[in-house]
């Protein structure tokens, strides 16, 4: 199953939740914002939102800036 994450294609297991996807990559979910198909997924919903084929996922972090 293929999804797009931050503009790049990624193959993942069907049924994967966003939270699982992030934790598998050691991403601290308290430090990111996530949008799925253009809609923001609140942090507390990441664990029960499953990715589907063709989904577009965006993972945003805070960086230094002026």
């Amino acid at each position, binding site marked *: 199953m293929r999804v797009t994450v931050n503009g790049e294609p990624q193959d993942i297991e069907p049924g994967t939740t966003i939270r699982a996807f992030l934790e598998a*990559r050691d*991403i601290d979910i308290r*430090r*990111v914002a996530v*949008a799925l198909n253009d809609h923001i997924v609140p942090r507390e919903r990441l664990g029960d939102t499953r990715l589907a084929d063709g989904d577009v996922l965006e993972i*945003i972090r805070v*960086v230094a800036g002026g």
Partner: protein
Amino acid sequence: MTKQAQPQAHGQPEDDRLTIADRTFSSRLFVGTGKYPSFETMVKAIQASGTEMVTVAVRYMNLDNPGAESVLDYLAPLQCHLLPNTAGATTVKQAVRMAHLAREATGTNWIKLEVIGDDRTLWPDTAQTVEATRVLVEEGFVVLPYTSPDLVAAIRLEEAGAAAVMPLAAPIGTGQGLLDWVGIRRIVERVSVPVVVDAGLGVPSDAAKAMEMGVDAVLINTAIALAQDPPKMAAAMKYGVVAGRQAYLAGRMPVRDEASPSSPAAGVIRETAAAGS
């Protein structure tokens, strides 16, 4: 609706707080977190600046390096408010989206709104900034828009619900100082929300001059981050802001055309005693 350019001197500095929306600040210096040689230097500079609010940006995470250190790890102990920005946005839609994501990522509904109209100069598109302000205010954001020194744009931003207006002193990152200081002063005289000068300041005298005109606060990034000694420059900026603010409150002497001696005109000692009477 209109502020005084020269108020009666009043109160003690400790009473001289700045309120924007629901936050009150003792320090009138806001600091950006970009461009420092290291996070350690950034932390020292922020501490030296005495600031209570720092800006951050939001960006796509680089999935090839998801464990990269986060600026938040360094900022967390500092107890500063975060002011996320929409830097990089060039349309209303993009800026609004960045604001949403920034709110989710940082937990604050404050946003430094930037909608850039020209890539080379990073000049704001004030018409789109007004529109984005309207949208975000409606959605409950506390919006601090970056704008040009254009008076009517500032008035329109206030009308759109901006919590403060943030005119630029000079193009971002140039350190050229207050190029159109008359334009900034015009905004100070006509807008009733706080005015924060953002971008282009280079040295503390720039910050002090802005504050002396009645500007409410300044936001500085590059001039600190790219100084040879960022923490020392951060302290210098802190003092410059305090100096300018205190001078504004103290009420400057009127500028005079004609010289006037500081020592008494009477009783001047003669060249020789014999010259007496």
